[in-house]
């Protein structure tokens, strides 16, 4: 019987194996396995993984190759809004569904290939291999979904998406823990680059997935009329996940209060927390994904509050944290200035790294305490956000935002920067050692910059 895999393809598959898995790539699952006689690979050995990680399946790399070859098609905030604007009718929903359906496996495939090229010792780390398995299962699930033609098809599709999103809630803590554990095995710069790529891609997939879920919800909701003007959804102005008019001051106030409450609870309800003063262009609004901006501002304020409290523990007065909101024609800028003593010079260089930085053991321990499942979210979430939330909706960020202050994970800044840069923004920090810190978050206001995917297409 002729081999299903011509020899040249087998060779090509072999050549992809530079650093990664020489053996795990090849699948022996029933529908794709050629007869062993026609497939006399020198490497055709079934491989057991080390340690306690699950035995990996054998998979064909050819299928993955074909998806890796396709580029991702980036979408901008503007396009996201447009898709969910007025005239959200059946056709548009199905169009978007198919866009998501074809994009997800492409984007995941790129990340899987990325992981495969990492050193073997890294990907066999128990946390990272968990992520690898999650990604591969998701890839397999999504690539097999046929074209969506009807609303019912879309509903089924949404079920798969919802399920996958929920399963992948553990990815961020797992990645972070894996990277921390591997920091001595691989140059930290490589780990940081990897982490940045994976996180960026993750944001990209979740954004389009969640946007689609939200739009489907809107479409299916009994109060939705396709030709009515301003889209209403539960009394808010969300277009799916995107909030066209995030009010900068409100975000800072809400998030700030939340952070202050958390700090107060952690340190004792009578403990002082610094005041947060807002100045600048107070009526600034901009389109953004609310959970993203809340996460970033939240991290910055948490850092400032913590630093201020630590630095002035013995004095009566806590100097306030000053937040400046500034809008320019194309940008919105948040400047968070605190007097928390600044960042020591020797820590400055590692501030943006996931792999480097002080106290890795303590951080690892803290990570294991971050609630991974939505189930425990209710326990931890003390304040409710003013905007409605669907369950499972980007809960990965919510769990991080709601964590108590003493769970120092050491990745607030690099994570925030990934989110900021995702929409073509930036995050910069300036330290006045001995005095305080200024952090500048710049956001592109018009939302017409495409997501910053990698050149090779995420």
């Amino acid at each position, binding site marked *: 019987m002729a081999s299903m895999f011509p020899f040249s393809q087998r060779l090509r598959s072999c050549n992809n194996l530079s650093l990664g898995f020489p053996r795990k790539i090849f699948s022996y699952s029933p529908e794709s396995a050629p007869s062993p006689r026609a497939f006399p690979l020198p490497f055709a050995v079934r491989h057991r993984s080390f340690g306690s990680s699950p035995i990996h399946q054998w998979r064909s790399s050819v299928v993955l190759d074909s998806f890796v070859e396709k580029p991702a098609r980036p979408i901008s905030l503007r396009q996201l809004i447009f898709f969910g604007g007025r005239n959200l009718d059946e056709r548009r929903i199905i169009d978007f569904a198919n866009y998501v359906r074809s994009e997800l496996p492409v984007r995941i495939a790129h990340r899987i290939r990325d992981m495969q090229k990492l050193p073997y010792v890294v990907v066999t780390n128990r946390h990272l291999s968990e992520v690898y398995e999650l990604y591969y299962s998701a890839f397999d699930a999504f690539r097999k979904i046929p074209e969506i033609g009807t609303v019912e098809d879309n509903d089924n599709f949404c079920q798969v998406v919802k399920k996958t999103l929920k399963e992948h809630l553990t990815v961020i803590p797992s990645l972070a823990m894996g990277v921390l554990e591997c920091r001595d095995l691989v140059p930290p710069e490589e780990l940081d680059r990897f982490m940045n790529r994976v996180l960026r891609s993750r944001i990209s997939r979740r954004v389009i997935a969640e946007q689609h879920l939200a739009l489907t919800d809107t479409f299916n909701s009994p109060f939705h009329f396709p030709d009515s003007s301003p889209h209403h959804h539960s009394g808010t102005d969300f277009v799916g996940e995107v909030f066209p008019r995030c009010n900068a001051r409100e975000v800072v106030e809400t998030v700030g209060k939340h952070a202050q409450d958390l700090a107060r609870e952690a340190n004792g309800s009578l403990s002082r927390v610094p005041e947060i003063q807002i100045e600048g262009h107070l009526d600034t609004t901009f389109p953004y994904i609310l959970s993203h901006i809340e996460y970033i501002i939240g991290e910055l304020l948490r850092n400032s509050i913590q630093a201020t409290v630590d630095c002035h523990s013995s004095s009566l007065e806590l100097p306030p944290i000053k937040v400046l909101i500034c809008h320019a024609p*194309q940008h919105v800028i948040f400047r968070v200035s605190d007097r928390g003593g*600044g960042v020591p*010079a020797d820590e400055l260089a590692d501030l943006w790294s996931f792999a480097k930085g002080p106290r890795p053991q303590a951080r690892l321990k803290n990570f294991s305490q971050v609630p991974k499942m939505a189930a425990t979210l209710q326990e931890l979430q003390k304040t409710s956000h003013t905007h409605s939330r669907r369950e499972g909706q980007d809960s990965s960020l919510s769990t991080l935002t709601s964590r108590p202050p003493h769970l120092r994970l050491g990745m607030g800044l690099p994570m925030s920067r990934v989110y900021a840069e995702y929409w073509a923004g930036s995050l*910069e920090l*300036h*330290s006045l*050692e*001995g005095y305080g810190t200024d952090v500048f978050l710049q956001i592109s206001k018009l939302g017409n910059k495409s997501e910053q995917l990698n050149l090779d297409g995420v």
Partner: protein
Amino acid sequence: MNLVSSRSLLPRSLRLLPISRRHLSTTPIAAPDGYTASTDEIARLAANPLKPLTLRDLIRFGRPPLSPQALLASARFTREFLPIRLCRRIVALRNLPFIIVSNQHVSAIYDNYQQSLRTVQLFPTSHPNTMAEEVAFTEMLIDIVKAHSNTIPVLARGFLECRRYISSAEATKFLDHHLRARIGTRLMAEQHIALHLASTQSPFSNSNPLDYDGTSGGPDTYIGTIDTSLQPAHIIESCASFVGDICELRYGVRPQLKIDGDPEVRFPYIPVHLEYIITELLKNAFRATVEAGSTVPVVVTIAAAPESAGITIRIRDQGGGIAPEDLGQIWSYSFSTFDHERSMAGSKSGGASQRNPADEDVLGRFNEVVGAAEGSSIAGLGYGLPLSRAYAEYFGGSLHVQSAFGWGTDVYLKLKGVGIGDFGGIGMGGLSGHHDDV
């Protein structure tokens, strides 16, 4: 020993020779006594391994007043290393395209360097050995420093005139290199001069060509050009006063200044460097504030890192910030965006309004810099930021500009103390992040 009377001790050949303005060729220029510095010799000297000027070098001869032996050692050190630095500058200049060095201004600078090299080399190596020679040597140094005090505006003028023949990137690269190197060369000469003056006469006498402006406790805290107890707040106040005067003259308005953080902090540094940097930064901040019509004071925050690791100075204005399209230009020696009318009066921050030619004179003064770091006017050529950064980075510091366009600008100046400690210990400053590639 009185400097004036010692002039007669100089050999005839040392008195300044007329500089031939157009003489460009690489054939040796003959000095009256037949001494020549040939091309080959320049190349040979320039090829010497570069010895970066560290703070250790600056203070290694001791605290003034120096003994005659120490002073002579300092003079000989300068005699040994100054020619190497001068040669490297000459080599860099002569490797520029012919058409650039043909420009009258650039060639004047080129001749200047060659002249200075000849002058220094007329002292035999391993000299001076006597106090008389040392005095002559120092006076020669003073003359050289004076002769080169105009280098920047003249060079800038030359490059401006040649902007059609050289790319912006190439010019920036050369100028950045050159001006950073110049900081070290000048410092080497000025340090010896300062040590000499502090060791041989009272620092407050009138014939002192370098100004000690007493911003510290007094001459006891100085080691040559370094004030071991420099109080930045003092320098900031005096620079603000100067810049404010000019603002009042030009705009009729004087922005306010507020200093907070730790105004009492002191650290070892070179006052003229700090003065230059602060003046440039305050000029930017004040001008932006005035042009934006803002009455909000410029706030300067001084932060002292624990364990004397350094200080950070933040200058915060509410002058509207820097437009994104200008941000890419602020660090370049941006002669390429000049037009000729603006060359004497213009300046570089984003959104600067058109200058009235009648105000050129006033603006020329606005662009003057106080202190001995840059002797004469920079004439608004937009060198302030890149040059300030060069000074800041010289001893391992840094300068960052962060703009919130639509509101204002924050500038962060970090300086490491010129790590003297109690003179026994040598600190970090100057040994790492050193940009002295002369």
